[in-house]
């Protein structure tokens, strides 16, 4: 194949995936999609192998599009698809991460043949289920919302003009206009992908485009395998743990065994604790995404656009019934915490294999913080996701107070909160000096933010982690500080667990602190100028 056609089609497909992402998030009703970029878009080949995925959206959805696709195609074969048909699914036991993530695949027909699929997944604000906002009490996934199994529908017959599927989904959720509007945006994104593939087929011919897609997958596989081959053969083990499942006090161990042999890499999560009763389980698709995101970060960084080729070079295994591959009907809503520990366990294992790329673990936690208040018969809900410190490396200190590596959510401006909410007020928001793990390079700092409650009857719901088990240091570095959530009430301090619901009173002050990242290297070897700079800036 002509190298320039290859390069131009490859860049064109990547650009199409990005453009689809823009079409999706620029018109999203959900702030999680709009600002948090909790979504993904991509182009799959005619068999459903991911070819190009937007690289501007969050890492957590890397590499899992094809898994859901296969569940759909297994039940409703590609050969029987007609123009206007689409696949839809949010089933966590058929490749989705949790019910909030609805995946849509639209076949792209050219001259009567399916030449590719466009795919769009978005995290939806509300998918029905037991409670609005955060509901930590589910004991199975049925309580977590409306389940859309792997299905095939038709846009004209079932969706457009208030079609029956649209009506059905709208009737099962609390804020239908937002959720349905965001699904519409997913279709719009898919239409953008189809338009771009059509243009390429017209210009280069279907055969060339198909060949270019196959070569794009082979290209990524080549690059990933080349970087795996550079790792010494061996077996590397990493382990980390979650504080608990929110119901008991038992730490939840996550263990990754990375085996490198030639240009093959296998990650096996055998030794990980069994699945739990609460929603802290991570379905297998989440485990795969977290693993691939870690491998991409450590091996290749931004430059290699992951697709099916990466999945061919990397095998991910997790025993059925463990925290990272639970059996139905285990609930999975808060799957991010376990996914982060999977990320950390792989990070630790890869760090042994590639010492020059080794990074200590960061705080690496999704801190979901939710205040709700029933006012004039209407629920006011404030939800935000917090930051944490990154781990240090041989190269430098960890980054201070930043969104976790699998996500990229922004904080909420104080002035926006002041204008929108009258039942609480932020009193401080600052770095936590000294919270980074000590080391020749120190871990990144966490932050502290306080919320003064201005009315009786406000409810706090939180899910977080690393309140009891810190981000460990590396190569002699110290652990990062733990996170914590304290309620100051009448001169007393009430300690809140990392997964909890608390009824609040007027005058309460909640102080929510995120923790730091692990340090790297012996603290005694820290550069004198770095020590004095830390002191001068008040970082320690």
């Amino acid at each position, binding site marked *: 194949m002509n190298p320039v056609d290859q390069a131009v089609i490859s860049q*064109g497909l990547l650009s199409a995936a990005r453009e689809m992402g823009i079409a999706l998030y620029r018109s999203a009703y959900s702030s999680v999609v709009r600002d948090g970029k909790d979504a993904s878009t991509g182009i799959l080949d005619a068999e459903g192998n991911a070819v190009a995925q937007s690289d501007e959206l969050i890492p957590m959805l890397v590499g899992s599009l094809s898994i859901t696709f296969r569940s759909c195609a297994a039940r409703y074969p590609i050969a029987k698809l007609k123009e206007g048909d689409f696949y839809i699914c949010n089933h966590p036991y058929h490749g989705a991460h949790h019910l909030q993530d609805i995946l849509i695949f639209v076949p792209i027909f050219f001259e009567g043949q399916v030449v590719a699929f466009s795919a769009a997944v978005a995290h939806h604000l509300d998918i029905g289920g037991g409670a609005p906002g955060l509901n930590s009490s589910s004991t199975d996934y049925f309580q977590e919302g409306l389940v859309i199994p792997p299905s095939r529908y038709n846009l004209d017959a079932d969706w457009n003009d208030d079609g029956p599927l649209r009506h059905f989904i709208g009737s099962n959720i609390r804020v239908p*206009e937002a959720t349905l509007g965001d699904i519409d945006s997913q279709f719009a994104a898919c239409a953008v992908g189809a338009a771009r593939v059509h243009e390429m087929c017209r210009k280069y011919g279907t055969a060339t485009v198909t060949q270019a897609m196959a070569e794009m997958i082979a290209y990524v596989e080549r690059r990933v395998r080349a970087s795996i081959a550079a790792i010494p053969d061996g077996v590397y083990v990493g382990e980390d743990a979650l504080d608990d499942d929110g119901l008991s006090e038992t730490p939840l161990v996550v263990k990754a065994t990375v085996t490198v042999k030639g240009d093959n890499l296998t990650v096996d999560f055998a030794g990980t604790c069994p699945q739990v009763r609460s929603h802290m389980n991570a379905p297998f698709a989440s485990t795969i995404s977290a693993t691939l995101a870690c491998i991409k970060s450590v091996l290749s960084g931004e430059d290699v656009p992951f697709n099916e080729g990466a999945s061919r070079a990397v095998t991910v295994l997790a025993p059925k019934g463990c925290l990272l591959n639970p059996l139905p009907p285990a609930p999975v809503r808060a799957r991010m915490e376990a996914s982060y520990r999977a990320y950390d366990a792989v990070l630790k294992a890869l760090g042994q294999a590639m010492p020059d790329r080794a990074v200590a673990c960061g705080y690496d936690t999704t801190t979901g913080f939710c205040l709700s208040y029933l006012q004039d018969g209407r629920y006011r809900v404030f939800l935000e996701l917090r930051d944490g410190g990154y781990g240090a490396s041989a190269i430098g200190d960890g980054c201070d107070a930043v969104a976790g590596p699998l996500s990229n959510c922004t904080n909420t401006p104080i002035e*926006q909160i002041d204008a929108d909410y009258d039942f609480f007020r932020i009193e401080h928001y600052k770095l936590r000096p000294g919270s980074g793990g000590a080391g020749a390079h120190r871990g990144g700092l966490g932050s502290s933010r306080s919320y003064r409650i201005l009315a009786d009857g406000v409810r706090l719901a939180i899910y977080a982690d690393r309140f009891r088990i810190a981000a460990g240091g590396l190569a002699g570095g110290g652990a990062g500080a733990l996170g914590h959530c304290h309620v100051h009430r009448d001169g007393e301090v009430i300690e809140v667990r990392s997964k909890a619901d608390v009824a609040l009173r007027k005058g309460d002050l909640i102080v929510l602190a995120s923790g730091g990242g692990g340090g790297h290297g012996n603290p005694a070897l820290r550069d004198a100028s770095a020590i004095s700079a830390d002191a001068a800036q008040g970082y320690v």
Partner: protein
Amino acid sequence: MKVGVEIGGTFTDLVRIDANGLTIAKVPSTPSQPDAGVFHALEVAGIAPADMVELAHGSTVATNAVLERKGARLALLLTEGFRDLLELRRQDREQLFDIFYRKPAALVPRRDTFEVPERMLANGTADRALDLEEAGPMLERALREGGYGAAAICLLNSFANPAHERDLADWLRARIPGLRVTCSVDVTREFREYERASTTSLSAYVQPVLDAYLTRIEARLAEGGFTGTFSMMQSNGGRVPASAIRLNAGSALLSGPAAGVTGAIRQAGLSGYTDIVTLDIGGTSADVCLVQNGKPELTREAKVDTLPVLMPMVDITTIGAGGGSIIWVDEGGLLRAGPRSAGADPGPAAYGRGGTVPTLTDAHLVCGRIQPDAKLAGAMPLDAVAARAVFVPLAAQLGLSVEELADSAVRIASANIVSAIRLVSTRRGRDPRDYALVPFGGAGPLHAAAVADALAMETVVVPPNAGVLSAYGLLAADHSLYDSLTRRTRLDEAAPEAVRATIMEMRQGLATRADGMGLGADRHWDVTLEMRFVGQAFEITVPLDDALAEAPTGEGLRLAFEAAYGRIYRHGGVMRDRMAEIVSYRVGLHVPPEAVPSLAGIGGHGFAVPEVMVEVFDEGRRQQAMRMARSSVGATPRPGPLVLEDVTATTFVPVGWLAASDPAGNLILRKAAP
């Protein structure tokens, strides 16, 4: 005589307008002494300061002060509890998969941030009064001992009530004479404390650098007997007097690319094109901007070195595809063009300054789109042999001829530009087919037809002397002032009067400023509102037409909002029963310059191009192209392939395209009928 001088990374360009029409000059930039470049350009053009009635200037001096962190020694004063705003930023990161990720250094280090006891609320009432009784003496000591040259103040909700910022500023000025104090409300009155603090500190940070720079220029101008007006380009695409830009130095950030967009708008406008996509390809990058109805899109999310600037800025997307972009093969065997650049030094191999890696300029030379003896202004001789030689190893690796490889690289660069334009249009909800492409910069007209072809854009408007369009833009630009204000207004019965009053208040403020600058009476306004449904977490930009801005009605505001909403939410529909609200207002005041002639009217440049057939390698095959002076193309369309040269740029017209000159001196390229 009126003169525009634009300092770019590689060249400093000059355009002069006088009774004889236009003349131009191009000299190498002097990055270590940018102001010297201004006078060097004047000297080369034979212009004495005393002869100018007007000097318009564009410079990267403010941007560079930020990039190099060479601004004021600055203290930042914030509401107690929030000293770390600049470090915490918005918590997200710029690179998603970088395990060694670090934030760029904060403009004001943590030890230079100070907390002030006070707390203003969103409704403008003080929850806690500004109290300097106890904290004042310590603050004063710290500021004195810190040796600060400037202080920036950004207090929570100051846009709702600036009293605390004003009182604090007065207190500082009284105690520490000579300290330059900047209040956030004097820079921007929009909400979002991090972005406002960032903008305020950027403005205060570059202010002394810009002031010193302009003072040096003014002194030298005065020595030369200059008594005209001296204005400077802003990032919003308009100018202000140099004396005024010092008061809001942040508006000079990222002003470089804005001048080109303004020039493109004016020059294309002479031919009646008002919906355009501008494409500026220079030495290191390609800048793309979408222009609707003669107005550039303005962004509220502009950033300098990832630091947000909460000011209206021409929304320019930059990608790494310029003449110096390096052509390489990545680890997976894929051919790439950019984003890394050989820069100005050593630059392309063809420049003969020791460049050893192939660049886009080398590729154009190998393919014959640039002829080795092309007499480009700033005239450096081109070394075709060196350009060929640097492609040989890569060509061998890929099994291609040198021409095939060079042509492939050009096509890949064009494809990257196509992607950028698609992303910009999608982000704005626009279709590139509805626009004309206006290329400029030294290399824009080389790629334009291929780019337009891929985007199914029917028309390319190549401005004359496209290499100096930015300097022309300086003279063609309006004088512009903007004000913005966060003031929530629900669209209820009282809204029309409240909106009218707010717009009038902002207009009067701008008019007073314009009077103070001595700007003319031909004043035009533009008003946009940031609106949303109550309860939504984000706003959309709603432009108001003049009639609605003069006399707002409830229905008019609602319809304007719904129209803007519908462009974004094409599928979800408008929620008719939900209350909408205004979050922020933005008002612009524009004073146009006297009529500026077309950039085509260049006098005094004898420019001879041999009219011969030359060999060009394009789209994978060898072709015979006519090489001629651009000025030789008349009103009758000529078919490509053509290599058309003027003194600042070469235009390539590929097979299947027709080129014709129009009365405004623009070269119009159209796809030939199949």
